[in-house]
């Protein structure tokens, strides 16, 4: 569905996307993951024809450079935020977006109801919470029922509750068989949203893998905070150090560095030494 070859984007002398390639089959859900400045959003902007680029981009066989309108008619785009239409009413924004795609009121009402926006239709965009704004962005993208959805950092401005709600909606979309391309810098959420991750850094692909393998592929490590009886904290630290872990005691238990795929191993070592782990937290 989406084919990108030799994509390079420069701003002046700065190369933001460097010989990037990607293939996304119809129905695939793929994340572009990476830190800020990795080039994820620029790839999305190239797909939409918002910026010039070198290389080739095709969506459903159509060249994005020469068939921009046709390509965009296949794509629903959810921007990071909708703050630029703060003075518009929700219903007016949905109608406007739908009218640009030649879509009628019935479909707008359907999508508004589906995303729980129907009761907020007469509010101004600025009156919506972050979660509702995100849903509004999603609604504008879903109104044309597009085969491809591009979601730029869909949970970046949301609190924990709104993020959970957004992830549930996006999981639903993933199972509808749409082609999803999501940008994110949250490693923990890409596993819930996509089947495949393309990790980017400095405009290049670092690795491409299943979300579960991403942390291992990138050699990412986490800190586990293991809460133990305070009287056993010193012993726990010694046991873990003895087992080869980088561990240190703190006021509630032990902090131990683990590989992202082997968090349970440290817990098992302590249990083997007869030390109860009352609770644990993951610190990245």
């Amino acid at each position, binding site marked *: 569905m989406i084919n990108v070859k030799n994509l390079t984007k420069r*701003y002046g002398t700065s190369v933001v996307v460097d010989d990037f390639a990607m293939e996304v089959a119809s129905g695939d859900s793929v994340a572009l993951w990476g830190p800020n400045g990795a080039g994820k959003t620029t790839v999305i*902007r190239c797909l*939409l*024809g*918002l*910026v*010039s680029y070198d290389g080739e981009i095709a969506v459903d066989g159509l060249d994005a*450079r*020469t068939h*921009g*309108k*046709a390509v*965009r*008619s296949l*794509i629903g*785009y959810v*921007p990071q*935020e*909708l*703050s*630029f*239409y703060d*003075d*518009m009413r929700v219903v*007016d924004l949905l109608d*406007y*977006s739908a*009218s*640009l*795609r030649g879509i009628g009121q019935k479909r707008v009402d359907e999508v508004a109801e589906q995303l729980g926006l129907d009761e907020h239709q007469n509010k101004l965009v600025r009156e919506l919470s972050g979660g509702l704004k995100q849903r509004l962005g999603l609604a504008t993208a879903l109104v044309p029922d597009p085969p491809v959805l591009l979601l730029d950092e869909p949970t970046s401005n949301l609190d924990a509750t709104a993020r959970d709600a957004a992830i549930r909606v996006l999981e639903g979309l993933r199972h509808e068989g749409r082609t999803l391309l999501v940008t994110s810098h949250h490693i923990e959420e890409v596993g819930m949203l996509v089947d495949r991750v393309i990790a980017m850094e400095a405009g290049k692909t670092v690795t491409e893998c299943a979300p579960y393998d991403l942390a291992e592929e990138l050699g990412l490590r986490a800190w586990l905070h293991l809460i133990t009886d305070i009287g056993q904290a010193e012993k726990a630290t010694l046991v873990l150090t003895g087992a080869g872990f980088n561990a240190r005691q703190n006021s509630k238990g032990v902090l131990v560095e683990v590989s992202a795929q082997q968090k349970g191993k440290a817990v098992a070592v302590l249990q083997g030494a007869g030390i109860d782990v009352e609770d644990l937290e993951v610190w990245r």
Partner: protein
Amino acid sequence: MTAITGNVVERAEASAIMKIARKELKGTVSSRWFWMWVVAFVGLAAVLVMVALPSSSIDGQAGFGRTAASLVTLVQIIIPLMGLALGAMSIAGQRESGALRFLMSHPVSRTEAFWGIYVGHVAALGIAAGAGFGVAGLVTALRGVSGGAAPFVWIALTSWFLAVAMLGLGMLISTYAAKSASALGIAVFVWLVLVFLGDLGLMGTAAATNMPVSALFVSALLNPVEAFRLTAMTALSGSLDALGPAGIYAADTLGDSLGVALFGVLALWLVVPVVFAWRRFNGKADL
């Protein structure tokens, strides 16, 4: 209409332009600053008309013609700033806020987006000019004054044309500026040059260099605000005698076609900047 985006030609549809224009118009007329402009223009127009009407004559005008004459100076100052500011903020402002990227994520071409924004703002400026001249006309009519309606309507229309010409110039600035604040700053500078420095500078240059009257007249036409003023003077009195030698030269040279020629210059200002702005917007690599 077809548009060239880089090396790409995409067909533009009038219906898409009108949809964008409607949204732009609605957005502009619901903004606070737009109504501040309108209230300032309407208020000053009403005051000027009330002051002007009891006097015996303005340039020999009577009735609505006198009302129109009293508004020409106000139009020369306020309308260009309104058009330039609106145009300057249009593209740069939307690019900065992300609204332009959101619009262009829909199946619309750059040509449709550009002309949609332009048409929406043209309509908004029509409302502003219409409100100012409408209130002035109403005040005039309520005072029982009649006659001279044709030049009044003509000057109202040319005021709108001046606003639209300035809008095109503002949009041209907007397509080059990286930030809306820079665009607005350049627009205010251009306004100062056109409204104040242009007039005074031309007079000063003419006096200092003994500029020939033909060159003085042509130089005046290079300024759209002057082109409007000359068009208005011709509509009101049928001649440019008040301009002195340059006016007499213009009348002698152009004869009966003076009015048409002046309007032609204003029309060029209406078309040229906005076409350049459109070409620039279409050719721009990144939004």
